[in-house]
């Protein structure tokens, strides 16, 4: 699987962004890096969709943003979770786990029968 890169599944981008921000406030670039790192470079964020997602989440009140100066003295917009955002992460993660478990069960069952 190494070297093969995958676009983030539709509908999961928001969850991943929120999850990344759960750790600490970050700027957009940081979120990209963090997700790539965690996914062992499998998941690549389309930048054209990251920023709209950030704005959407902010509008939904799940994250907030502020301009800060980075360690290299550059101005950057940092995003952090709101209280509602933190609640939302756990919800989304729980839902995702339920779903992926279900999908896995289905896949396994199918494979099992196919292999028989």
């Amino acid at each position, binding site marked *: 699987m190494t070297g093969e890169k995958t676009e983030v599944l539709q509908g999961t981008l928001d969850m991943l962004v929120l999850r990344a921000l759960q750790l600490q406030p970050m*700027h957009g*670039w940081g979120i990209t890096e963090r997700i790539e790192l965690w996914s062992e470079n499998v998941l690549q964020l389309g930048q054209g969709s990251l920023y709209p997602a950030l704005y959407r989440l902010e509008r939904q009140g799940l994250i907030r943003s502020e301009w800060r100066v980075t360690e290299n003295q550059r101005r950057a917009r940092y995003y952090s979770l709101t209280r509602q955002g933190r609640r939302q992460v756990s919800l989304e993660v729980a839902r995702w786990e339920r779903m992926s478990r279900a999908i896995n069960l289905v896949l396994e069952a199918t494979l099992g029968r196919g292999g028989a």
Partner: protein
Amino acid sequence: MGRLMEGWRRLRSIGRRGAVERGLGDEIDFHIDRQIEKNLRAGMGPEEARRQALIRFGNVELARERIRDEFRFASIEDVARDFRLGVRALARAPGFTIVATLTLALGIGATTAVFSVVNGVLLRPLPYPEQERLIELVHEAPGLGIDELLASPAMYFGYRDHSRTFEAVGLWDWDSSPVTVTGSGVPESVTSVEVTHEVLAMLGANPIVGRGFGEADDLPESVPTVMISYAYWQRHFGGADALGRTLVVEGVARQVIGVLPRWFRFFDYPADIFYPLRPIRSEAVFPSGDGRGIARLKPGVTLRDANVDAARVVPLVNEEYGRPGMLEQTRFGPKLRWLKDAVVGDVGDTLWLVMGTIGLLLLIACANVANLVLVRTQTRRPELAIRTALGAGWATIARVVFAECAILGVLGGAAGLAFAWASLPLLVSLGAADLPQIMTVTVDPTVLLVTAGTSVFATLVFGLIPLFHVASPGTPLAGERRGGGRWSTEGHEVVRVRHVLLASQVALTLVLLVGTGLMIRSFVTLRRVDPGFREPGVIQTFQLTIPTGLVPDATQTIRVQREIVDRLAALPGVESAGFSSSNDGLPLDGDGKSTAIFIEGRPATDGTPAIREIQFVSPEFFETLGTPLIAGRAFGWNDVDRRGVVVVSENMARAEWGTASAAIGKRIATASSGPWLEVVGVVKDVHHDGLNQPAPEITILPARADYTASFVIRSERAGTSSFLEELRNAVWSVNANLNPATIRTLGDLVDRSMARTSMTLKLLAITGSIALLLGLVGVYGLVGYVISQRHREIGVRLALGARPGEVRRMFVRRALVPVGFGVALGLAAAAGLTRIMESQLFGVSPLDPLTHLAVLLVLVFAAWLASDLSARRASALDPAQVLRGD
């Protein structure tokens, strides 16, 4: 809830929009720079690093655009876009747009026009500086049975000397108007007011040329002076220097001392000359009612304070000008009122009633437009469904629908304003005879504000009804995509909403029609009232004042007046002529005299005799009016000379002596000391105070010495210009300095007396007809719509052998169900609402069954006709074509 929060966040984000745009570029730059750094670290050359970073990021502009998309709601350019789309959509449906705009224009325009009258007459303050401190001096004397007694010289002096709450007091009178102005060519009849020196200053009428009246002008020995209106200055002096010029007013040479400003109007009276009233202290009597008083309150004084203060002054006035015991006997007391209320009178009831009916009309118009918008939205379902399919949410669809409504609201408001502006002259002419301050009615900023408010209100009403329906969850739009609506009955929901709208429309229309019907009944009843005179249209009347210098003394006036009557009676086509002494002796002229009448052999109970109207008339006066003699005889000229006789009205004869004939030979007096006057005749009752008022009990004496008289002439030629010409010549042939004034027929007076009823009737009739028309359009539209929704069903029915008539009747029956509900609702509402107009009615109960029945039949028949016509048109289908059309 979630939707609400979402809306709020979006709204909040609008404000931050600019900052976000600015930040966006920086943020993207920052991101790309980081990527470049990373690429450099990975060993790429600078060029390559940059190129790869940009590739990696993707289309920067696209990203920006998508971010901006997140802000798409209620932002300025979106609203502008919605409007552009709305305008285009409306332009594609000119029929809908025109009908909706016209309906709205009618509703908003009528509201605006009537409100501008309400505003001008009732709401706007009088056009005098600090008018909120001006009051009219009115009194009451319950001991004399008088509930409203005007001011008098005694009260004027009393308040001037003793009041603590008045800043200024003034007295005025127009009894002698119009006056004859001579000295420059043809004698001229000029409207006039006599004022004490305070009056004009109190009204803020500071002269534009010359000076105003001062205290000296009111002194009997000073040089007689006069002030003239701007209009008279232009007309008489051509705007040239008029100061110091002389006007001979009623034979008195008066010096012009000032010209009043152009804006100034003396209430509703277009008076041209003003001269000092000069009340004489030594002649002042208490109690009396002679002239009208106004006062300016000191700052901060309430009407209540003023009344308390005035009540303190009254005994002082009695001490100086009255007799002991007078106060107890008359129970004289102040009843001061704001000048504004005095001017407006009781017209408020009528105007608010009309305003209310116009409000109902507006609602009907809104219901109609809501209906139209619903239909339009239904016919646009395929388009809206595609929008939904393409991802448009609740808000987007709502915006599309509402943007159109808003445009219609703006169009309707603008057209309504134009409509109001155009119809205002008509409205003013309708109200001219009756409404105070009507000449001041214009479309002013307040009116514009109300028009704008009305438009917004109307838009909300007709916009939100379809909006909530269309955009509510479970909207039929979802179904549209699935089934294509082929055999769908998805119109049901809409039809229900439309039924409710139609029923309320019918109910409102019914209320308006019942109101109109009641006014028509009142008008007819009023017309049928026997006024006590015949054929008022052929009775010419005019007033004539003999200048004081023309006859040696007042006793000679009757000789001149008799001579004039003789000349008038000799004119070709004149049946008879007569006169009544003074300028208030005509029926329905809104004026009259009253006095205490003592009956011989009948000591007055509780010491005060009954107050009755009194009139002084020449021979032939009642013959000319066509008032029949019930008993006895009328006056002859020898009665005028010898006096000693009196004629009474029939109702007075009955009240005092039981029957008309029993009155003959009885004796009465106008003073406790006599002389006794013998009743020689009884005439039929005449409605002096208005056709809707009972005829007063009246005592009639022979004509008396008076410089002014009101002449009456019965002739088929009354009112024609040739006749008036001959009439003037006849008067001039007696004396060239005489000039007839206030020339009108008795018919004019009758019309004026009915002015309030006829104005209310006309306005309600206009409103009612428009309402009926709109209501019928509503019924017509509903039936047409229902049928259009069910073309296929009808096609099948027809194909299966149903006769067109049956199908048609089915739809008519269904349409009449909401009409029936509306009628029931309307009857209930009318029962409550018509009570408000009770004071406008005459001789008919607000619950008059005949009116209700007639209106009900008219409405139901009209609704049936409209639905039948619509059904005929819409159901004229060829079944084969309809079914093939699928």
